[in-house]
């Protein structure tokens, strides 16, 4: 069976905005989503390990990270909406079939996320009310939550690798369907790109977790002792180093072991060579910054580290977008869809976005002002 036959017709409505606009928001939204998503993906398991095996400062760091986790998750879910919206606008022909073929695992993300989110709250309420004497069952919930987020990462890697692995659709569809209608129980496990990609994302998430520890220590932990800050920076350096090596190893496996030759050739030639190179060596900059701050972290350099890590994530998102289109190119040209621009809703959205961001900035300014007046830190 020719897998291209499984791709449906174009929407008669066309894209509501030019492709570049859709993909810009998709990549921007995905980059923003990556920050909190990385923190729950790797940050919770790191926090649990620190709480289990770490010293006094490591345990305190674990407690700080976990107490912030409910807000981080809320922001992560929120930031995930934008790429989800725009992937459905521009990639609907492959997104819906791929997720339908694995409907039950994909649907289970909602159940798992609900359980994991409440799991975080159960753990954090334990930290708040019981501190070091937290009940054992709450700790178990913390570990289960960490595992659930890693499982969800695996399911996401499945869905988005299957979206471009159109060749695999017929083989997944036929044995898991009843009279041509899929039961939705397939997984993209035979795709060679799946495992290295999932693991590479975990390595990247470790680096983001470490960078966040630097940002938290430099910017938010103003009332913590110098010993704590030095301890936190040591942890950050170790975690970043492990994450960077992990990212390099699994990234190499992904690029050199699983990419199609034409995709690899494209990414290693011309101007794209620069993007590929920067994506590969990008984590080196935050690592150097953390190394330089290991004895004393400052607000400015902590902020620079955070911005540098954001750049690392943005490079990954851009590279991923280019590779995604290249993987799809034998089956589908997403740039060739008809366009029917909705000017007034588009402009209104942009105006509201600016107004909304302005309102958020105003609220944060009030918060910073209140924080200066306050004598204690907020209890999450």
């Amino acid at each position, binding site marked *: 069976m020719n897998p291209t036959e499984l791709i449906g017709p174009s929407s008669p409505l066309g894209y509501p905005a030019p492709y570049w606009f859709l993909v810009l928001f998709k990549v921007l939204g995905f980059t923003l989503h990556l920050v909190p998503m990385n923190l729950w993906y790797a940050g919770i398991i790191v926090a649990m390990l620190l709480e289990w095996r770490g010293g006094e400062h490591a345990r305190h760091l674990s407690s700080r990270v976990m107490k912030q986790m409910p807000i981080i998750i809320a922001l992560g879910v929120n930031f995930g909406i934008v790429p989800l919206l725009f992937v459905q606008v521009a990639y609907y022909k492959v997104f819906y079939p791929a997720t339908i073929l694995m409907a039950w695992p994909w649907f289970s993300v909602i159940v798992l996320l609900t359980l994991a989110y409440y799991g975080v709250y159960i753990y954090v309420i334990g930290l708040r009310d019981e501190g070091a004497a937290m009940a054992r069952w709450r700790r178990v919930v913390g570990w289960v939550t960490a595992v659930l987020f890693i499982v969800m990462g695996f399911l996401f890697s499945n869905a988005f690798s299957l979206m471009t692995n159109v060749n695999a659709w017929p083989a997944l569809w036929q044995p898991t369907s009843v*009279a041509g209608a899929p039961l939705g129980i397939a997984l993209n496990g035979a795709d060679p790109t799946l495992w290295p990609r999932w693991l590479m994302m975990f390595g990247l998430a470790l680096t983001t977790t470490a960078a966040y520890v630097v940002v938290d220590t430099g910017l938010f932990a103003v009332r913590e002792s110098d010993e704590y800050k030095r301890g936190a920076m040591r942890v950050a350096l170790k975690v970043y180093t492990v994450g960077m090596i992990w990212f390099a190893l699994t990234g190499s496996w992904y690029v050199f072991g699983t990419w199609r030759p034409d995709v690899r050739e494209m990414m290693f030639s011309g101007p794209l060579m620069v993007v590929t190179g920067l994506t590969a060596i990008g984590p080196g900059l935050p690592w150097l910054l953390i190394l330089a701050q290991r004895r004393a972290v400052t607000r400015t350099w902590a902020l620079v580290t955070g911005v540098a890590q954001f750049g690392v994530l943005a490079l990954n998102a851009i590279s991923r977008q280019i590779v995604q289109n290249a993987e799809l190119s034998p089956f589908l040209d997403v740039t060739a869809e008809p366009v029917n621009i909705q000017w007034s809703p588009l402009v209104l959205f942009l105006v509201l976005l600016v107004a909304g961001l302005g309102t958020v900035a105003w609220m944060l300014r009030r918060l910073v002002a209140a924080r200066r007046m306050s004598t204690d830190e907020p209890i999450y």
Partner: protein
Amino acid sequence: MHYPWWYVPFLTSPMLIAIISVLHVLVSHYAVGGGLFLAVETRYAYRTGTSGYLAYLKQHAWFFILVTVVYGAITGVGIWWTIGLASPLATETLIHTFVFGWAMEYVTFVLEIVSAFIFYYWWGRLDAKTHQTIGWIYAGSAWMSLVLITGITAFMLNSGDWPEHRSFWVGFLNPQFIPQVLARTGGSFLLASLYVYLHAAFKVKDPELSHLIERRSARPALWGAILIVIGGIGWYVFLPESAKAALVAASVLNVLMVLLFVLTVAVFTMFYLGPYRNPRWLSPGFAIFFFTFGLAAVTTGEYIREAVRKPYIIYNVVMGNQILADEIPALRRTGYLEGGTWTKAFVSHHYPQVINEGKIDEARLLMLPEADQVKLGEVLFQYHCNDCHAKVRGYSPVAQLIRGWTPEMIRTVVRYPEKSHFFMPPWAGTPEEAELLTKYLMSIAPPHPGGMYYGQ
């Protein structure tokens, strides 16, 4: 048919949308009404210096965050998940029409999340004026979120002139928009009262404070009653003709309409006579009873709102069985199996002998062995009928509906389903394909129940 059809035995996959949607609606409306309640009541508590009430409101804000920000937000995303899986063509159509509506709603969602967290976590650390302003930012953005989403969901019930104009604003400002905004705003007030009442019943021990909360929490529900009545009347007036006819014709909807009326009247009467006029009734048992009544009323209302849309998912645009209304004439000429992306691939792969010059030869379908014809009939059932009907057991199972029918009766309904029941989509295939579906249905239809006496 543009996409693979997700087969969920017994339940049917669209029922998952219904389940997740109802679970979401019960919280998302509280997220709107509860936000407004917190903004209004925090202002009142600051103004009157009622420190006990202020302390209670902080407690309630924590409950509010746990319910709305966690559960409400995730079930909201869950709707996205399920509509993409169980109704992909309608989702494709909606997202290409309203992506900027959703993008605007996303902005309000960001404001909701940020303001909700600041409102609670910085309680006592912000000056009273700023704290109240943050509360109002939450309330305003949550209501805007309701307005934006209602524009899209109301469009699904009455697309108005959109099929001719295909413009965002014509679709968004559809005839159902204002009535549904009013009704949903009223519903959100009602749910806010119920949640506050329930929470306070368990948390508040001081009788004075308890009475104050009862009186104050009853007010939104009573305002909500007015909005629900006005919105409900508007909803009925601007229903498409077929939806009004369905309310009369479908027995389940008859019963549910009566149930909705009774439940709604009971809830508002209890609010008026109870918390508002006699604020000493507050007890956990009564609160649970009351809360259950309210949830039943809202759930029934949502069910009716969804059901009257049949046979469309988006009225006059996308049929309930994942076909664009515009596509039906062509499918009747060329065949449903030929027109469907996945059905065509299925036939090409399993029955290459019926393919002629790259297309399915309809005449050859009826030359296949009987078992293969039944199999292809099952394919047609999955893609054409399983949206609304399970097979033998489960949700509206077709086999039970045609129990004891003759082949002629089945054939007639397959060929003219919209004549048999106007809330069914028309047949979108060739006569040969209708024959295949008839043979499949015959194969699963149980015989007429035995032992029934008709006077002979």
